[in-house]
């Protein structure tokens, strides 16, 4: 079977299981079936509410993701190639790795205020240690022979980074972005839940207080749908392009 067919069938199986469970439960206010979600979804969509909050959350995810990936990439590369620096920074990394997301979020809000800066900073700080650790592994495994080659032939620094280092780090970068995306959007929801007045997390907070299970599901599923689209339409094609040389 073609991969796309398997993917479709697997998703349908999930929906069927969900419908069966909803039927067995019998109370749509506790567990609405997928069909029960269609009407609230359409209403929320046509009022523009859903798109607005979805858009706000996407922007926050993108900002935090971009920041965490670039800072983590630089840090990981430095720590992976400079053992002295690594010894100094490693304890910090361990501290930040083990700092619960919630603590960072609360502290950022307390110190900076209930604003956008604090929200994005909290998410970014949560993700940087993770990216750094993964990229550091990649940087430690860089091929010393290729480095020697670049040195003898006096390759330009920019060329060396782009054409020698980056391709070697590519699998680690994809790994970090994949796990990064998933973690970041979950932390963004918590940030919105706790201290923002828009976004998917804020809406979920609102409907949680109204005991409206259907709307909570509508919002979270919409975002999951969006992330699946990103994965299939952006990440996977990009990955295929980067890996082309391996398959040739």
């Amino acid at each position: 079977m073609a991969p796309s067919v398997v993917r479709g069938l697997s998703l349908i199986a999930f929906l069927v299981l969900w419908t069966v469970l909803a039927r067995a439960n019998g109370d749509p206010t506790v567990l609405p079936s997928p069909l029960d979600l269609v009407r609230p979804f359409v209403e929320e969509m046509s009022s523009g509410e859903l798109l607005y909050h979805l858009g706000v959350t996407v922007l926050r995810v993108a900002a935090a993701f971009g920041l965490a990936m670039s800072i983590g990439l630089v840090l990981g590369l430095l720590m992976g190639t400079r053992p002295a620096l690594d010894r100094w920074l490693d304890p910090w990394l361990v501290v930040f790795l083990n700092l619960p997301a919630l603590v960072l979020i609360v502290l950022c809000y307390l110190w900076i205020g209930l604003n956008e800066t604090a929200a994005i900073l909290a998410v970014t700080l949560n993700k940087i240690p993770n990216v750094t650790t993964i990229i550091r592994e990649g940087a430690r495994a860089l091929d010393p022979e290729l480095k020697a080659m670049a040195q003898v032939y006096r390759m330009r620094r920019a060329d060396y980074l782009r054409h020698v280092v980056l391709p070697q780090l590519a699998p680690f970068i994809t790994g970090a972005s994949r796990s990064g995306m998933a973690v970041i959007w979950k932390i963004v929801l918590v940030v919105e839940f706790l201290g923002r007045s828009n976004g998917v997390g804020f809406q979920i907070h609102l409907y949680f207080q109204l005991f409206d299970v259907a709307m909570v599901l509508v919002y979270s599923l919409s975002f999951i749908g969006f992330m699946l689209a990103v994965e299939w339409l952006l990440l996977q094609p990009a990955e295929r392009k980067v890996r082309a040389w391996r398959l040739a």
Partner: protein
Amino acid sequence: METGVICVSVKSKAFGKTPILKDVAFRIKPGECLAILGKSGVGKSTLLRIVAGIDTDFEGTIQRPDAMAFVFQEPTLLPWRNALDNLLLVHRGLPERQAREILAKVGLGEKADQFPGQLSLGQQRRLSLARAFAGNPELLILDEPFVSLDEKTAAEMVALTRKLMTEIAPATLFVTHEREEARQLADRVLELEGTPATVVPNVVRPVFQKEEVK
């Protein structure tokens, strides 16, 4: 000091407490090919890395030109870039037309768009050789570039290397454990021996002339 002469003088080199090289000194004139013979593990590769400036942790002085090329034991190509880009990315000033000519010269004219992984080991070695000569080096260093090739491919490689060496005429430093290879390529042979390795006395001699081996 004469210009263009490569002057190597390594007083000592150690890895940790293990001494590897001691009192190794020689000079290479432009266009001259010096072979260094020695058993595996004697420190030949270490010496080459010092000469090339890859390893700077030693006592002594090296006088070398900026335009250098190194043919490593392994092809050491960029597997994620095609054959042509492997030349162009390393030699930024090289026009594409010229890079294609060099590829054709080493018999890879048709392979410009292929990734190194699609080439045979012999072809990868030739690409690595093309990369070395593409920069018109003043100093060319070869670290056993013909090992693990079958006899026929190795002979082809030696012939190709010789052809390119006469064309570009760099000062060449060449390491091998095969006396025959040294005979075919080198003007002079120097032998490394002992622990720490040093130049064997009285072997710095013009034993072989290129003309001899036609």
